[in-house]
């Protein structure tokens, strides 16, 4: 049965991939990419990787689609015909694909218990998490505690990506504070957005603080927060959204998240532990781990929210008439 689901999902992924290559309308391609992400999220659920699935659904199918649509709105929505014959790229893709498939022949089978990835540190993580960290979700314990350095690096990467987009796109303040086209016509959308906005933000808080126990955590929560605000901006216009969260504030928040993360590390050094060694944060090591994980997850979500919104503001503020 599970094989059947796998085959159907992979088949749909392949069809979507071919459609993306063949279709010239970039708006359709953006929507197809969203479908592709949603299908991969479903595939991750089948593989029992619910944390990854949540991230893929929120980022791939949610935010990145909106950003792609905003980009298409800035440029043309028709793909230009290629100027060269596609023979050389076809050859390169074919050669790379063959090499990759050849490489998979040496890989262990899926689910093989003797595979190196299950023999290295994974067993120690699975074995020690309940007594050292005391959270049921091992993904969170690996991400936030055992591999805290890596996650700090990832958050810094997100921060620098946001700073890069900010440097490239800049930000234009508008002279006229547009309230969006056709106030009257958006009435249904606005009422529903108002109805769902608190629920979306509540769900983001749930994902953030429930990350120890179920799928979720700082990254996913940050993206869900950002989607909530983007929904508000879509329904009520960018001007109103900026009254809720001004661009100035976002630029500060973007760095504050990383600073909270690093500060937790430095605090644990001051208390006599190593950098990001949470167990010294409280009297009881397990409580310390809980506290540390919670604090850095909050930091991660602040940075992710701010960066997503900055990228969105950056794209949308460049549109002259549109009110994406």
């Amino acid at each position, binding site marked *: 049965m599970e094989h059947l689901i796998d085959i159907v999902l992979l088949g749909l992924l392949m069809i979507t991939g071919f459609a993306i290559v063949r279709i010239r309308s970039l708006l359709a391609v953006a929507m197809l990419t969203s479908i592709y992400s949603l299908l991969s999220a479903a595939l991750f659920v089948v593989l029992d990787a619910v944390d990854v699935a949540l991230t893929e659904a929120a980022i791939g199918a949610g935010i990145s689609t909106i950003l792609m649509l905003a980009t298409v709105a800035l440029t043309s929505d028709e793909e230009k015909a290629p100027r060269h014959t596609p023979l050389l790229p076809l050859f390169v893709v074919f050669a790379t694909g063959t090499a990759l498939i050849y490489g998979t022949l040496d890989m262990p089978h899926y689910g093989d218990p003797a595979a190196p990835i299950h023999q290295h540190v994974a067993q120690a993580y699975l074995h020690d998490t309940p007594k050292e960290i005391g959270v049921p979700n091992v993904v969170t314990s690996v991400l936030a505690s055992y591999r805290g350095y890596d996650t700090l690096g990832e958050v810094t990467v997100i921060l620098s990506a946001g700073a890069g987009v900010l440097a490239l796109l800049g930000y234009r303040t508008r002279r006229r504070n547009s309230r969006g086209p056709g106030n009257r016509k958006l009435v249904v959308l606005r009422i*529903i957005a108002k109805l*769902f906005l608190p629920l979306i933000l509540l769900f983001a808080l749930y994902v953030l603080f429930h990350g120890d126990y179920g799928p979720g955590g700082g990254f996913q929560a940050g993206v869900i927060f950002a989607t909530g605000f983007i929904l508000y901006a879509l329904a009520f216009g960018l001007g109103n959204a900026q009254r809720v969260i001004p661009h100035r504030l976002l630029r500060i928040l973007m760095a504050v998240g990383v600073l909270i993360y690093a500060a937790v590390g430095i605090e644990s050094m001051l208390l006599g532990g190593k950098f990001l060694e949470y167990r010294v944060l409280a009297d009881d090591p397990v409580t310390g781990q809980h506290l540390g994980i919670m604090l850095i997850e909050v930091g991660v979500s602040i940075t992710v929210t701010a960066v997503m919104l900055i990228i969105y503001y950056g794209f949308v503020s460049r549109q002259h008439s549109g009110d994406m």
Partner: protein
Amino acid sequence: MALVVDVLSWICLLGGGLFLLIGALGVLRLPDFYTRLHAVSICDTLGAGLVLVGLMLQGGLSLVTVKLLLMFYFMIFTGPTAVHALAEAALQGKLKPVVDECEPQ
């Protein structure tokens, strides 16, 4: 009792599947954008809604049912809103609906 619930749930599941099929056919076969939207909205509300109700009956009184109920409410609100927003956008983009040419004078 269990049999009745099971039969009801399967009726809902199959009915939902049927409506999804009808909606998909409609998206493929109907002549213009607005009528296709009509087909999509059937998928969204009746199709997915009936499937969710069927699953709720299968779940019984448990946390799963509560979650499914939340999903149901979410679908009921967002589906028609999305279709409405699409139709509104198409109208603003000056997309004319196809009308029957031999309509009565």
